């Protein structure tokens, strides 16, 4: 238990650091802006109660917002992300009987499940974030292009980082 908390704290600090000081300066023509900090919320253990999950999601979102000067934007996107995560895990994990697993990680859940999980959660997060940022439906084509390219970038970073920290758990 204590180890899980420690790992999550380290992961949080590391991801926020990378997001705020490295990735904030990276962007391709304002079209593709990666937000891999959502990995923190995605990798929280399965047994985290809902209220704590939402609390952590809001906290993460607001922390990123503080660095990006966009009060509330990332928090709203993270709230959506947390909700989708709960629904997604409810739908997929119980049925496949993974309930005794601690964390939704690549090494534990397998590549196929983790990839779909990443794609769905990233898409929901980015759609919320970019639509709220544009605040309207004036230029849907531009917004969708940004969602598409940003999502590809984020998914790529998340999957790569999971492969780097890949640990196959023997069951």
């Amino acid at each position, binding site marked *: 238990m204590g180890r899980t908390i420690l790992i999550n704290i380290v992961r949080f600090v590391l991801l926020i650091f990378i997001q705020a000081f490295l990735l904030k300066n990276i962007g391709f023509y304002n079209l593709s802006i990666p937000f891999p900090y959502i990995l923190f919320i995605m990798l929280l253990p399965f047994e985290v109660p809902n*209220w704590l999950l939402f609390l952590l999601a809001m906290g993460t979102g607001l922390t990123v917002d503080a660095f990006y000067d966009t009060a509330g934007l990332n928090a*709203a996107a993270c*709230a*959506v992300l947390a909700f989708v995560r709960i629904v997604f895990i409810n739908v997929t994990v119980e049925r496949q009987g993974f309930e005794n697993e601690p964390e939704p990680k690549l090494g534990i859940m397998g590549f196929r499940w983790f990839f779909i999980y990443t794609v769905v959660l990233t898409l929901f997060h980015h759609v919320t974030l970019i639509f*709220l940022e544009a605040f309207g439906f004036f230029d849907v084509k531009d917004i969708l292009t940004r969602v598409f390219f940003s999502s590809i970038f984020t998914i790529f970073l998340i999957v790569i980082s999971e492969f780097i920290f890949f640990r196959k758990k023997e069951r």
Partner: protein
Amino acid sequence: MRNLWGFISKYNAFFFFIICFIISITLIIRNNSFQRSGVFNSSNEFVGEAYSRINKVQRYLRLAEVNDSLAKENAFLRKDLKMSHFDDSLVQQSVLDTVSRQQYTYIVARVVNNSIHQKNNYITINRGTRHGILPGMGVICPSGIVGIVKDVSADFATVYSLLHSDTKISASITENQAFGSLVWGEGNSDPRTAVLQDIPNHIQVKIGQHVVTSGYSTLFPEGLPIGRILRTKEKGGESFPEIVVRLDTDFSTLQYVYVIKNLFSAEKEKLEKQSKKDG
């Protein structure tokens, strides 16, 4: 009650989601100026549109008065036409006119919203940035002055009416060239009168003298009619009497106005700022 509690705890994720999302949206709208202006701008456009629809009806009802005032103005302008003057020069030469340059141009606008009974009155006109209106321009009507442009959107502009406690207009009395500033409010809330301040006591002010714009400000050309002096009242112990001016402009039936564009204002302001900095 237990059922309700059971329902909430069963779908707790959804309720947490709603709470978090509402908090975030509130934060976004309160703190981000872009989204805030988005909300207020779209509502402004909506309000402006509504006003202009209602105004269509009012405009029709006032056609006769507007026609009268236009005819009067036409007659006034016709007087200044070249063909109204006796031309006693024999040879006409075409000369490139380098002596007189255009200083003021006028943009015509229709009043779509107007109030006269508030403490601070504003006017909305149906011209905006797209037509070249900028904040701070002067606004006049055929009979007198109206106010100063406050905010501008793409298609509409709000104007500080002269009947606004923050509006101050530099004015002078034609007969003796004394100048002061014309204000409204502060105990005087009659939409037909305003108060001329800062005229010293030693200047002889008579009822019926004309008050015009002074030309010291860049907003209005010199000599536009404002009104006539209605009464004066000396306040004890003060060196400035209170001069009440009857306004020429009838704010209650305002229909068409002209926004004044001063082509020299940037130059004049730059020069004055320079002098202030040096002094």
